[in-house]
């Protein structure tokens, strides 16, 4: 199957199967392939990919709580600031993949301990490696986010090749002071990605409601401009 056909099949998960999980060895192999093939500025990879396995039920619920709270907070603020006149007032069902899945990957910024020998020599001649300093984490968060995007896309491709479904969520508080209950997230959270075998896809809900044809992306020429 071509890469295009493979990625065209990717759909957001409504529910994962809870009684069937990809083998641990398979996930390890897919993470290795992704780590191996994802490039990074100055070869630092200034992010963590925390992996929560099938048994980490409470930990995943804490992460899900972050998304739900952030969504609610955004809607409330929009009303306060006059952008909206009401809130939806219910939990987005399409966040359920964060809570119930086989594996959850939680990405957060990482302050790097040391450069590799090549960049160590560059630093000695005056190159500045911002990835080594906590005070620069926020300033380079955008680059870390792009690199996490590269990582998860490669991971997606390798997962899809094995028949493993994936979904993403980027709705959560960015302020790390709101993450005191999640000890492994010490710096800026960046993305959640879930993995498993789909029981139901989001598109099936929309299809059932007769809405699938309305959920379209912008036209290519709204996004891509030939100057």
């Amino acid at each position, binding site marked *: 199957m071509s890469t295009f056909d493979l990625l065209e099949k990717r759909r957001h998960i409504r529910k994962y199967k809870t009684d069937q999980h990809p083998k641990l060895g398979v996930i390890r192999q897919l993470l290795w392939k992704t780590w191996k093939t994802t490039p990074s500025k100055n*070869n630092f990879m200034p992010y963590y990919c925390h992996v929560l396995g099938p048994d980490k039920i409470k930990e995943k619920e804490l992460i899900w709580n972050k998304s739900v709270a952030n969504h609610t907070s955004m809607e409330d603020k929009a009303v306060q600031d006059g952008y909206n006149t009401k809130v939806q007032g219910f939990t987005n069902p399409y966040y359920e993949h964060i809570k119930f899945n086989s594996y959850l990957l939680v990405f957060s910024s990482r302050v790097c301990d040391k450069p590799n020998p090549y960049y160590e020599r560059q630093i000695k001649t005056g190159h500045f490696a911002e990835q080594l300093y906590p005070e620069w984490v926020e300033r380079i968060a955008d680059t870390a986010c792009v690199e996490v995007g590269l990582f998860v896309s490669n991971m997606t491709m390798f997962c899809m090749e094995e028949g493993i479904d994936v979904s993403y969520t980027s709705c959560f508080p960015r302020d790390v002071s709101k993450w005191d209950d999640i000890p492994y997230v010490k710096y800026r959270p960046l993305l959640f990605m879930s993995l498993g075998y789909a029981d139901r896809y989001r598109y099936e809900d929309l299809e059932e409601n007769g809405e699938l044809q*309305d959920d379209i992306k912008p036209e290519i020429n709204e996004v891509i401009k030939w100057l």
Partner: protein
Amino acid sequence: MNTFDLLETKRHHVKTYKDQIPPKELIKDALWKAWKTTPSKNNFMAYQIDIYGPNMQKEKDKLWELAVKNHINAEEQAVEKGLADKTQEGKPNPFYEHIKYNPYLICFHGRVCKKANPFYQRQIDTGHFADQMYEEYVSHIHGSTCVEVGIFAANLTMYLLENKLDMSYNSCFIRDKKVWQDKGLFWVKQDPILMISIGYAKRYRKQELEKWGVLDDDYKPEMNEVIRWL
């Protein structure tokens, strides 16, 4: 060739591109596939992709200057703050050359979306807040937009490699859109996120490092430094 081997053996940072210009159709094909297969929160795709073609050398010179200036600024700030005791004295990083000399250069920027699709318009009508539609929220959602740009870039990379094209990325540039506009790049409306150059490689960075005998020193962190099993 499988996807892992394609990425592992074919994607390398380009030092210098050949003068040969790839057919525009190959680029358009890869872009269309990337657009089609890249997901986006609420299907907004809150970013813009500007493409600088073979005839835009003056503009690419300016983009290269924005990269070099940022690099210099970062080094100078580090010395000012006592994090370093010297700079590289303004010597341009030779591995930014791909930004200046290439057949095609793509720049990603944030984008304020004018409208939601019909599904999300109905969600908005019932109280969903679409932050992608407001100028004042562009910086708030910047992280999310950057992740999506990374996903697009990775997908584009696969399609370009399958079309036997090379590409390189750059994320070192002045972030302030006003500086871009002041340089005459007046179509830039939001802060930049990423640059990708595309063409046929004449020489890769790794060949330079190999020549200097330092290729083995330029490795990534160990997997268990990045991937943590709880």
